């Protein structure tokens, strides 16, 4: 494994803390087109991950990701729990089968995205977290190996989340609103963006 346990640990901690810090924003986005719990859900999950962080980072990377996935599945609940959980479980699974970081980053991330899509029976364009995850995956593919990869991922995520505002939701709780879902940023897209940005920030700090 090319990534050191300490680095991984601080990366996970940074990401979890970022999500916890943005919980009020996520909740208020969810109040607008959902049921007002996305921030609380993600905070609960991230706190659970932080609580197990020593055990998680003591594992090899593939197992560590699966442990994160399992922890999220068991603590987040709602729609985001199984989805983020499936993402990390699948990413960990990919690393257990011949994939390596950093060279296979796009593939590993892609496994996670596919798992979200399969679990949610959803795809980009439906005003969900996939509207951030899929564009980020595209950038990971097209800009792989480029020196500005991290910067491009950051701007991709930031732009993608804004593009969910004009969309009409066809999956998740916001879909029940029909046309009234238009004009609001999707909370799950926002939490995905927060996660991606936090990982980017950690990697940048390290560079």
């Amino acid at each position, binding site marked *: 494994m090319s990534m050191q346990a300490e680095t991984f640990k601080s990366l996970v901690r940074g990401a979890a803390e970022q999500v916890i810090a943005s919980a009020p924003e996520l*909740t*208020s986005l969810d*109040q607008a*087109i*959902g*049921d*007002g*719990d996305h*921030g*609380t*859900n993600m905070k*609960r999950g991230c706190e659970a991950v932080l609580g197990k962080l020593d055990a998680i980072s003591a594992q090899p990377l593939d197992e560590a990701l699966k442990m994160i996935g399992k922890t999220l*599945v*068991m*603590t*987040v*609940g*709602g*729609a*985001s*729990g*199984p*989805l983020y959980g499936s993402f990390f479980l699948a990413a960990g699974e990919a690393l257990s089968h011949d994939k390596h970081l950093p060279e296979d980053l796009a593939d590993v991330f892609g496994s996670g995205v596919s798992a979200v899509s399969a*679990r*949610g029976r959803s795809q980009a364009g*439906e005003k969900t977290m996939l509207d951030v995850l899929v564009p980020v995956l595209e950038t990971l593919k097209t800009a792989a190996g480029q020196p500005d990869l991290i910067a491009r991922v950051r701007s991709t995520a930031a732009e993608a989340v804004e593009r969910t505002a004009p969309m*009409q*939701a*066809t*999956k*998740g*709780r916001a*879909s*029940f*609103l*029909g*046309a*009234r879902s238009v004009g609001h940023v999707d909370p799950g897209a926002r939490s995905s963006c927060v996660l991606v940005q936090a990982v980017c920030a950690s990697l940048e700090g390290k560079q």
Partner: protein
Amino acid sequence: MKKFINSVDSVLAESLDGFAAAHADLVALGAERKFVRRCELNPRKVALVSGGGSGHEPLHAGFVGYGMLDAACPGQVFTSPTPDQIVEAAQAVAGDAGVLFIVKNYAGDRMNFEMAAEIAEGRIATVVTDDDVAVENSTHSSGRRGVAGTLIVEKIVGAAAEKGLNLEGCVALGERVNTRTRSMGVALTSCTVPAAGTPTFSLGEDEMEMGVGIHGEPGRRRVKLERADAIADEIAAAIVQDLDARAGAEALLFVNGFGGTPTIELYLMYNAARRMLEKRGLRIARSLVGSFVTSLDMAGCSLTVSLLDSEATALWDHPVRTAALKW
């Protein structure tokens, strides 16, 4: 936010502890409060497991007991339970006849129960409820929400399971009841999720949210507050149009309070709704009035109509012994 709570983080745990203590003759709480189950299990019947976000009390834990559910998994407020809760509940109550999950149609509930079904051992089948006619545009691909009609599915399938119906039969019956059941709600005020601390939405003194969801999701539209008859008429029309019932059909009418609306108003709405449904040719043969599928402290109510046949009527009348429904 004015609520009887100690801390927003412990609302669910404390409320569940109170529920289990108050009804210790009927139910027991699973380890780590992952589920509520009947005290007395019958290993030969199909075991019914439901669950969902909390904040809808007495749904679902209040329906655990003879003639209805075997276990219920309470998620955090408005948050589906996690797969481990569901798996442990299923394992705690499963007998020889398999386990039926009754799941309201929300992405979160469906995915968590689906993951549980993938993990749990033994025969598991699922019935999904989606009785809310509020959302007019059915082109969106998530379908409809499962709301108060879920109670009716749980009651009728619960009675059938008690009488020995097998797993396939329970699935078919549950789907049939769900297909013949429609609901729609209206909110006069928002609910306030404890952890959020502020109302989910805000309505003017003269406004109501027509077609609201049980999590405070916006509905069809925000309109001026109307008289009870006009509200009942609009909801009855939406339900009857969608049900496509023949004239003279027998139905169960369920007027459900959302938590902040008192009984005196619910019976007034029942009176209005009954007239509006009879005007449209339905015959109200069974009735239920009360706050059973709530949305925390939201003021408002929903109407549910379920078409009856002699089988459904007999199963509805079958004895039930739970914390919230007893006859």
